[in-house]
């Protein structure tokens, strides 16, 4: 029986299999941010412990930081300051706001080449699954676990089950990685991946650039899966080559040899296999209050009575009340007040190019306030070199500094109660983008087209230039 990519990474990181504990897994890279680390550092302090491997740890500021000239509120500023103090006291490298290297933790890891095939990567953030796009085993942890990794560089973990999610076929023009993963979550449900590590495979995945692969792995947690992985290939290697943290010269060649051994064997067995044909997939739009509540953009708001399961029916009714939507309303007739292009799901340079290609030479609808927030200081620089900032600003978008921004409403970028937003982020939970705000999850292309039209748009009908 062959091995999966997951099997290989898992087995290569087993430190011990104690009788009185879950298997102990070594952590190659620990990413840290301001929101989930303060109590972990405090725990170390109380126990008189240090950070075991600071050189395998990197901190940045992303959740709380304002993306314009407004100051951070008092609590946020105190939390950012606590991270600065903790990193200094414990010898952890920090890419602080304004350093020119900061950004959303899941954007900068791959950007620096820190996230590499075959590694184990953790962070106190559920979207750590993003780094699985490089062929790493990467998952989100809680603050107690952050403290555990800081102190021991290991984590006791039960071996998860494996799922293979095969995207077959070729998506139509205008249908993106975001639509593939939203479609998959709609299909398997928000708990469909619970207890699994999902390996995304199939031709449609192989053809995706790294940014699209990261979008897919990023949302694994929205299907309940702690981690998603994609086997490394030439696309992965080309992406990594020359990045600051990647080995050079003969070391690079040796790394390539190791990485080429990682992909799953053809006869590897998975606990579950799901196939999704993307040939007929449409751009997806969420209508409810969890990421499994999605429909095609040319569809309608569903009727709760269509759900057989009583708790799904309840949830749909509650969601429609919260979202102020009527069953049967065509998605394309839904008008939005705000558009947010950003987040660890969709704020890489490729995402911004995709949105800019839709926006170029057009104007944002007068009712709509639209925001573009690059995922990192590096993405912002790159976009400005390419003139994308001008494209967005000329069209009427606000162009901001890097941060999590309106994805989670922990900084000044929030929705007002009742505002409706087309968002490229990952969660449409009640109040996620601001209390009373109504979130519709979409791809960057759909978000951009929606900003122009003021209502959702089927981007397959636009003369879209294929995005390189």
């Amino acid at each position: 029986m062959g091995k999966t990519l997951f099997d290989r990474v898992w087995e290569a990181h087993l430190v011990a299999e104690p009788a009185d504990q879950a298997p102990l897994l070594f952590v190659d890279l620990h990413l840290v941010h301001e929101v989930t680390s303060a109590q972990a550092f405090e725990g170390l302090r109380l126990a008189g412990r240090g950070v075991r491997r600071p050189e395998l740890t990197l901190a940045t500021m992303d959740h709380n930081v304002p993306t314009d000239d407004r100051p951070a509120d008092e609590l946020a500023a105190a939390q950012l300051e606590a991270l600065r103090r903790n990193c200094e006291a414990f010898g952890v490298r920090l890419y602080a706001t304004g350093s020119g290297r900061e950004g959303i933790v899941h954007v900068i890891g791959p950007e620096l080449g820190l996230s590499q095939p075959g590694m184990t990567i953790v962070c106190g953030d559920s979207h750590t699954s993003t780094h699985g796009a490089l062929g790493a085993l990467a998952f989100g942890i809680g603050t107690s676990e952050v403290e555990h990794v800081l102190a021991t560089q290991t984590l006791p973990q039960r071996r998860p089950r494996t799922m293979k999610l095969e995207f077959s076929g070729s998506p139509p023009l205008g249908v993106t990685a975001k639509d593939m993963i939203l479609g998959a979550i709609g299909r398997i449900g928000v708990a469909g991946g619970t207890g699994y590590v999902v390996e995304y495979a199939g031709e449609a995945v192989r053809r995706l650039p790294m940014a699209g692969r990261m979008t897919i792995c990023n949302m694994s947690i929205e299907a309940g899966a702690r981690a998603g992985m994609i086997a490394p290939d030439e696309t992965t290697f080309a992406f990594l080559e020359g990045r600051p943290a990647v080995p050079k010269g003969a070391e690079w060649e040796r790394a390539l040899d190791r990485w080429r051994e990682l992909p799953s064997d053809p006869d590897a067995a998975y606990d579950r296999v799901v196939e999704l044909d993307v040939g007929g997939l449409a751009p997806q739009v969420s209508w409810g209050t969890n990421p499994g509540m999605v429909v095609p953009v040319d569809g309608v708001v569903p009727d709760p009575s269509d759900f057989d399961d009583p708790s799904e029916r309840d949830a749909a009714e509650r969601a429609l009340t919260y979202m102020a939507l009527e069953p049967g309303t065509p998605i394309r007739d839904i008008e939005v007040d705000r558009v947010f292009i950003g987040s660890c799901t969709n704020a890489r340079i490729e995402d911004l190019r995709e949105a800019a290609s839709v926006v170029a030479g057009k104007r944002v609808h007068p009712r709509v306030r639209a925001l573009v927030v690059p995922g990192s200081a590096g993405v912002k620089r790159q976009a400005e070199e390419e003139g994308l900032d001008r494209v967005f600003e000329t069209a009427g978008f606000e162009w901001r500094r890097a941060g999590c921004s309106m994805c989670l409403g922990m900084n000044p970028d929030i929705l007002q109660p009742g505002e409706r937003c087309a968002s490229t982020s990952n969660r449409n939970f009640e109040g996620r983008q601001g209390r009373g705000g109504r979130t519709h999850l979409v791809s960057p292309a759909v978000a951009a087209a929606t900003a122009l039209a003021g209502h959702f748009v089927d981007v397959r009908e636009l003369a879209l230039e294929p995005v390189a």
Partner: protein
Amino acid sequence: MKPFLRTTGRVAVLDRADVDTDQIVPKQFLKRIERSGFGDFLFFDWAKDPDFELNHPDAEGATILLTGRNFGCGSSREHAAWALQDYGFDVVVAPSFGDIFRSNSLKIGMLTVALPEDEVRALMAAGHGAELTVDLEEQTVGPYRFELDPVDRRRLLEGLDDIGLTLRHEAEIAAFEAAHPSRVDTRALP
């Protein structure tokens, strides 16, 4: 961590599926750097509704939460588990849980019990304030038996510190580190 053997207490019923951690403790409270006091923010937005389940007079003082499937999905914020525990809950019973929430809860000594949906429904039928005993030694909730990873069970029963347990394997960790060169060095970055 306090050992957990058994508890008898009153229940609160929150019959909703897919309750995410953004609802359990909204983002504006994640800026605090303390670990205590999160109970005041539990279900902050929902709790403004006088008809919210936990505002029912009979739910007051409940120590066991009965709820729907996939409880605690979404964000990894351990603040959600802290808030439930600080509010007074020792046990959460549901048909299933978000993975990270479940592991966060067990780390801080709050027991999460997964039971088949029909058994959770039967317990819910007794309503807010009904008395229930959860026995971790016997692995029972009222009349029902539940499963828990034996390692987690023992850790809870004995109130063991996870980091302390791991550090007993110092020799193995050091041997692993010696045999496996670091993959990256964040201090060498520009």
